[in-house]
């Protein structure tokens, strides 16, 4: 039997997206006896402070990634094209290293008797408590997700026609005006996808908060993990939390896309 590409797509999506989603929905709306209930969803409300903290830390690291990533992406786009590929590769290089290993490396740097505190004590400064703080979690998020911010912004900026910049200069725009009136508005699509690509994994991470945040920085990801792998085994609550998280992420992406559409004309994006 010959399968059409569309048939392969449908089978794939059914097996790996629709059925798992249906299972999450099923668990979220049933009790251990298999009866329909809204209790799980209602119980999610008890963890609202963890939700808020996750969103806050995720948003904070997204903003930091943007503040670091945009200038970096812009700088790379300005460098001689010969070196641009090498620079992009260097940005991506840590991503090819195991995620766990990267985060573990930060542990050894930030620990109470880790590298930083050793250096500090050798020059006579009192040790700092760096690990197991929300700051360490944000650092871990920024470090791990920064490339996802840089790459989409870079790929949009390099595609901006140099003549458009020259036209703005020609009409009297200095460096600042060129940035605020031309470069920034034209790079919004890259910023939007950068924000999405950093915020979504940051808000749902559990490894980073577990390894760098200690017990006091539980995030949604940790909460979900506990429902499936921990002592408080409860796949029904776990599914409900996942569902609520997914809906929150969908809403935030929806808001982003609306912002995207209103600020840049769609034709330009589809033509380029």
């Amino acid at each position, binding site marked *: 039997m010959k399968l059409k590409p569309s048939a392969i797509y449908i089978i794939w999506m059914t097996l790996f997206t629709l059925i798992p989603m249906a299972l999450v929905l099923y668990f979220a709306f049933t009790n251990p006896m298999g009866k329909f209930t809204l209790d799980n969803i209602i119980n999610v409300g008890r963890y609202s402070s963890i939700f808020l903290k996750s969103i806050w830390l995720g948003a904070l690291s997204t903003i930091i990634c943007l503040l670091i990533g945009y200038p970096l992406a812009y700088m790379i786009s300005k460098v001689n094209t010969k070196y641009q590929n090498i620079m992009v590769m260097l940005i991506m290089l840590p991503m090819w290293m195991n995620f766990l290993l990267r985060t573990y490396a930060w542990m050894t740097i930030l620990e109470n008797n880790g590298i930083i505190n050793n250096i500090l004590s050798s020059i006579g400064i009192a040790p700092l408590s760096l690990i197991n703080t929300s700051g360490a979690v944000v650092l871990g998020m920024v470090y791990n997700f920064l490339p996802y911010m840089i790459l989409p912004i870079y790929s949009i900026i390099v595609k901006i*026609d140099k003549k458009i910049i020259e036209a703005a200069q*020609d*009409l*009297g725009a200095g460096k600042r*005006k060129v940035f605020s009136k031309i470069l920034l508005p034209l790079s919004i699509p890259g910023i939007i996808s950068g924000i999405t690509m950093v915020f979504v994994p940051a808000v749902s991470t559990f490894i980073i908060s577990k390894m760098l945040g200690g017990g006091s920085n539980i995030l949604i990801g940790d909460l979900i993990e506990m429902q499936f792998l921990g002592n408080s085994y409860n796949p029904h609550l776990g599914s409900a939390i996942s569902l609520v998280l997914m809906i929150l992420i969908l809403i935030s992406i929806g808001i982003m896309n609306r912002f995207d559409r209103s600020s840049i*004309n769609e034709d330009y994006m589809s033509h380029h």
Partner: protein
Amino acid sequence: MSKDSIISLKNITVSFHGQTILKDFNLDIKDGEFVTLLGSSGCGKTTTLRIIGGFVKPDSGEILFAGKNVNNLPAHKREVNTIFQNYALFPHLNVYENIAFGMRLHKKSEDDIKEQVTKMLKVVSLPGFENRNVSSLSGGQQQRVAIARALVNHPKVLLLDEPLGALDLKLRKDMQTELKNIQKQMGITFIFVTHDQEEALSMSDTVVVMDKGSIQQIGSPQSIYNEPENAFVADFIGESNIIDGIMRKDYLVEFAGKEFDCLDSGFDKDEKVDVVIRPEDIEVSPPTSGHISGVVTSVTFKGVHYEIIVDIDGFKWMIQSTESQNPGDTIGLILQPDDIHIMKKSKYSGEFGDYSAFSDEMYEVYKEKKKKNKKRVGGKK
């Protein structure tokens, strides 16, 4: 520098990556003129424009703007505006905001901006297009928005970098007329860059013919066409037969084995010269009644005329005639004194003017063939 020069380039030299683009380049542009820089790609015409616009810094030399040195003035502070080859409109702004861009930077009032933008849209025949997306416009409309965006700032000089290159033939002709009218109406200096000689001749007050980073000739379209200074100009502007000749005395030149009366004087006795004869000036006659004669090697119908290639002692002449001829026939050519233009020998002598081929590339191929044939003949002897 003459008093009324708005822009003067003095001894400008520019090179990129060790390659010289402009060499000791000098040019004065008069206020209110329509000047065209004409040349093939790589001749330095766009670089000249970018130097004036402030996008390229010369290695040496001076750029004067109404007598003032502007070498170190950045692009955004110069009183010139540019129309770029591919328009370079701002894709995230609509037509109104594109045109208002410069005025907003100069902190003009909203009322003033509105009045000027509306006026400019009328000038470029796009009234009512304020709220259109620039990407929804045709090439010609985008072109006109680019013109309006530049002119609304009332620059002293407008720079145009092959602005009509992307338009189709008919639209290009309309835009030529429109640009010329706008220039007259606004009375500002236009510096126009093109590789299209017809465009240059039909629009300009002054044409600057360039090759390999230096000026070959500056003059009115008529003088450039009728009195080219060297073989490059004669070949680049229109079609030309360029034949080796000897100036026997004033008003008498010898070429193709005959002596001809001509209108040129002031050469040394027996000075070697290049003789230019335009294909449309040559009259065809029966072989016996012509000044010279040759064998027709090819005839091509061109619509307005036939393009006839005639072999006269191994040199291929081009004739444009409304009457066709048969290849292989011998015909005569009649040359009147005012058909003949004499030029001094230059480094371009011998490079152009023989119609064995039209392009340099094919001409090389033919030359090689000729050489081989000669060798074969020589060997037999």
